[in-house]
């Protein structure tokens, strides 16, 4: 007996009773080729029938997901460029040497900021300001903070490393230098780049201070008063 007309198979699979002639049924029972095709159509129809409205038109992920992807792919490129252009150690030497010469610090900061921002080709790809994070006291640790501008929005990227193990966690804050105004941004983990969208209304021109605190799991949302790293964002 000839194979089932291939054009008929999707319709047969859609509805088993759909005018299936006896000879078609007999053939399907005997022919592995036609049966496999028929079953594949059955499977895909079943999958299609399971689909709900949100499967057909999935809602987009929250905006911050793309911002995080963009920031992460950008950080990677900048890190590669920075490794060739300005080794990290050189920057700390510069900072150390400049501790008593403010002008040199500002100059180095501006140069590094310019280098970091230089690959920016579009407004969506702009490092608006950056800072190295230096240990407070003698606890050790290091890190970087970057303010990324995406159109009218800002995202703070914080990358901390070599912090001591803790029973609690580390938290990033932004603050207005010279004041006690602090804004909690969220938890950071050593070795990972954390990203925090800036609350709208928080003017990054004033909120330049970056603070990393050691926090306990005590349910207190306030700053623990134990700062481990600090820095100040510069253009």
């Amino acid at each position, binding site marked *: 007996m000839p194979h089932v007309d291939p*054009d008929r198979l*999707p*319709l047969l*699979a*859609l*509805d088993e009773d759909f005018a299936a002639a006896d000879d078609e049924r007999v053939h399907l029972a005997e022919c592995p080729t036609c049966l496999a095709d028929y079953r*594949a*159509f059955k499977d*895909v*129809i079943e*999958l*299609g*029938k*399971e*689909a709900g409205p*949100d*499967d*057909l*038109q*999935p*809602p*987009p*992920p*929250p905006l*911050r*997901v*793309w911002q*995080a*992807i963009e920031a*992460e*792919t950008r950080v*990677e490129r900048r890190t590669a460029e920075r490794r060739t252009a300005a080794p990290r150690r050189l920057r700390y030497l510069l900072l150390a040497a400049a501790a008593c010469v*403010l002008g040199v*610090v*500002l100059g180095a*900061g501006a140069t590094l*900021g*310019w280098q970091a*921002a230089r690959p*920016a080709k*579009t*407004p*969506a790809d*702009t*490092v*608006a*300001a950056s800072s190295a994070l230096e240990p407070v006291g003698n606890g050790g640790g290091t890190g970087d903070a970057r*303010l990324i*501008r*995406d*159109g009218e929005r*800002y995202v703070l990227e914080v990358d901390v490393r070599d912090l001591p193990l803790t029973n609690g966690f580390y938290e990033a804050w932004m603050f207005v230098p010279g004041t006690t105004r602090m804004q909690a941004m969220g938890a950071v983990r050593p070795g990972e780049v954390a990203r925090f969208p800036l609350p709208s209304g928080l*003017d*990054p*021109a004033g909120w*330049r201070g970056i603070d990393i605190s050691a926090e306990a799991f005590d349910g207190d949302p306030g700053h623990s008063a134990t700062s481990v790293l600090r820095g*100040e*964002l*510069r*253009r």
Partner: protein
Amino acid sequence: MTPSETSGPDASGSPSGPPAPRLALTHSDRTGSDDEAALAAQFLAGDERALRAMYERWGGLVYRLGRQALPSPSDAEDLTQATFVAAWRGRDTFDPDRGRLAGWLIGIAKRQLIDRLRALQRDARLAQVVEATEPAAPTHPGPERILDRLVVADQLARLVPEQRRVVQLAFFDDLTHTQIAGLTGLPLGTVKSHLRRGIERLRQSWEEVDHAARRS
């Protein structure tokens, strides 16, 4: 070390707003395979706009996969982020001769998902040991099934409108061919042809993506 500058941190001074992705993925009966090929070429060339276009096209699907298969919305966000970052980093490993970009990307999402599910299982086992809790109920349906359903749904949403309407009436409203013809005013032969082609298209797309996802 108080800086004297008081101006804002905006160093660019250029107009705001990211550039729109150049690629528009059309809803052609051929699933925009030409557009996908152009997108793949742009992606391989390291053009970041291609990553954005891929995110526009498949980000919702990956996020939906995470929402369906993982416990929390933040897990789904994490899955989406990790998938597209891994795709960008691994773009050199995409070989257009071996399958569609969609399948390659979805293969990455699948591996990321499986890694996360394994980690959750480990945590659950650990919690059982520590807290002597009952094991978590296995997720139904499994991640493969969810992914297959999303891939088929994605293609269904991209059928040409008339074909899509006919297929949806058959799938979701369980209408007979004659009822669909009566409702839409289309000749019965056209209804059958839409159903046949629509279902064939779903199967073809599912198999292409599925095979590429398995291989990648």
